[in-house]
């Protein structure tokens, strides 16, 4: 059936809060808000433009203890907190003195986003996508996913009482299959890698006009949810920006949106305008952005991923070029680490700070270490790293590496005899 972009029944009565328009990042062509994601002129990504009103530190601090305290900076209606949603955000910013000491850093913080309702940062972006999708007239919440997003979409749709449709590569970690399937909803495993699933989702989105693929046809709205990571870091540091931040890179959206959040806070006068450096972290088995950075290229050449860090295994990253822009503008870098280093990173974070991160967290810790050792990152400057998900979802990565210290009979004599004290 023939469709046009607004055939999903969208009318311009949508309440998208401070959002005013969709503007192409490539050619600057602007259009009205609606269920659009690619520029009509050049296929470039559409970015939300805003007219922020009187957002102050006080107005934010008086808000709910979740991402909706920043609703005045997001493309969502002002009553967004009143409709059923998973209420993500305001996760811990952990002062990581022992990890800092082991790496030779002076002051280090871990933004631990495993504390979200489905245990990854994806709850943030999905909550914003759900709110926008409702306003835009969509009926089904859908996604292609490497796993974390699958969990978040299935849970958010269940909570909102709407249908979900989730597509994942069939070789996903067993934990992520179970933690999606449990929520019910349509859940399809696809014999292909993430980029194959992504392509399929893009084609389905062109046919099923009521389906909001959060990271495809609702992506301009969805991606804005990652700004809340940046807002929270600044607020939790006492309304200031860190000197350096290390962020995992899959599509690259999270990194670019944290930078966008910092820039917005500066423009709104909510934090001091001071320089900060943004670093990207990738796995060597899927390093298209790191490779482009190191080669001095503006264009990201797609790769076929092969890494245990499956949540970062996007071989054709949509925001790769913009990651390069941010990293180069701020004087940062993009580095990549081997799977062996990823496992070491997971264990180091767990052993020093009691935080069990997923493989993406291992990539970030290992990249931090590599950047410090290479002298690319200033060890005396305040640094924040992102742990984007929970180690319980990627148990296979460490299952052969860790084990109990001993097995003994239930007697004090046996305990003493084993020399365990």
């Amino acid at each position, binding site marked *: 059936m023939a469709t046009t972009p607004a055939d999903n029944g969208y009318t311009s009565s949508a309440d998208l809060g401070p959002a005013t328009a969709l503007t192409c990042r490539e050619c600057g062509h602007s259009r009205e808000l609606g269920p659009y994601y*690619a520029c009509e002129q*050049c296929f*470039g*990504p559409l970015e939300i433009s805003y007219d922020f009103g009187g957002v102050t530190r006080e107005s934010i601090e008086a808000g709910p203890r979740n991402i909706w305290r920043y609703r005045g900076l997001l493309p969502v209606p002002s009553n967004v907190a009143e409709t059923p949603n998973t209420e993500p955000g305001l996760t811990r910013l952990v002062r990581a003195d022992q990890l800092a000491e082991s790496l030779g850093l002076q002051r280090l913080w871990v933004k631990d986003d495993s504390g979200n309702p489905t245990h990854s940062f994806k709850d943030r972006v999905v909550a914003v996508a759900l709110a926008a999708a409702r306003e835009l007239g969509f009926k089904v919440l859908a996604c292609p996913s490497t796993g974390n997003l699958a969990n978040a979409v299935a849970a958010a749709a269940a909570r909102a009482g709407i249908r979900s449709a989730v597509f994942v590569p069939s070789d996903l970690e067993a934990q992520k299959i179970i933690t999606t399937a449990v929520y019910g909803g349509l859940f399809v495993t696809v014999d292909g890698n993430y980029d194959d699933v992504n392509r399929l989702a893009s*084609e389905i*989105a062109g046919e099923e006009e009521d389906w909001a693929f959060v990271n495809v046809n609702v992506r301009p709205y969805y991606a804005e949810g990652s700004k809340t990571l940046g807002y929270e870091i600044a607020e939790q540091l006492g309304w200031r920006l860190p000197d350096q931040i290390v962020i995992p890179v899959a599509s690259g959206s999270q990194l670019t949106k944290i930078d966008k959040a910092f820039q917005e806070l500066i423009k709104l006068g909510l934090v001091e305008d001071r320089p900060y450096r943004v670093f990207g972290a990738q796995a060597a088995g899927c390093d298209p952005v790191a490779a482009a950075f190191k080669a001095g290229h503006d264009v990201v050449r797609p790769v076929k991923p092969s890494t245990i860090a499956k949540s970062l295994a*996007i071989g*054709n*990253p949509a*925001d790769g070029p913009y990651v390069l822009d941010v990293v180069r503008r701020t004087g940062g870098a993009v580095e990549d680490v081997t799977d062996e280093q990823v496992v070491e990173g997971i264990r180091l974070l767990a052993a020093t700070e009691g935080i069990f991160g997923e493989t993406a967290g291992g990539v970030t810790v290992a990249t931090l270490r590599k950047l410090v050792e290479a002298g690319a990152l200033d060890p005396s400057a305040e640094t924040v790293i992102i742990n984007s998900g929970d180690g319980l979802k990627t148990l296979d990565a460490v299952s052969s590496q860790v084990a109990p210290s001993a097995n003994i009979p239930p007697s004090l004599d046996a305990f003493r005899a084993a020399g365990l004290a």
Partner: protein
Amino acid sequence: MSTVSVRIPTILRSLTGGESEVKAEGATLRAVVADLDANHPGIAARVLDDNGKIRRFVNVYVGDEDVRFAEGLDTPTPEGTQVSIIPAVAGG
């Protein structure tokens, strides 16, 4: 000369009279795009940049293969091939 089927993304369907799939002829992707443009004027300018290369934010598949992994616009398009033009801004 081979005939192929081309899937058209939503934002180009204003150029194909709303059709989501059209036929085109050509032995390579370059010839297919030229034939598409002859029948649906304007398509080539939307898919290709000023230098005649596939735009940064357009993915083109011949069968299951992203043509960036194949021979780009010189990728052969045998009789009956499925070609898909898809916005690249997706995922993650």
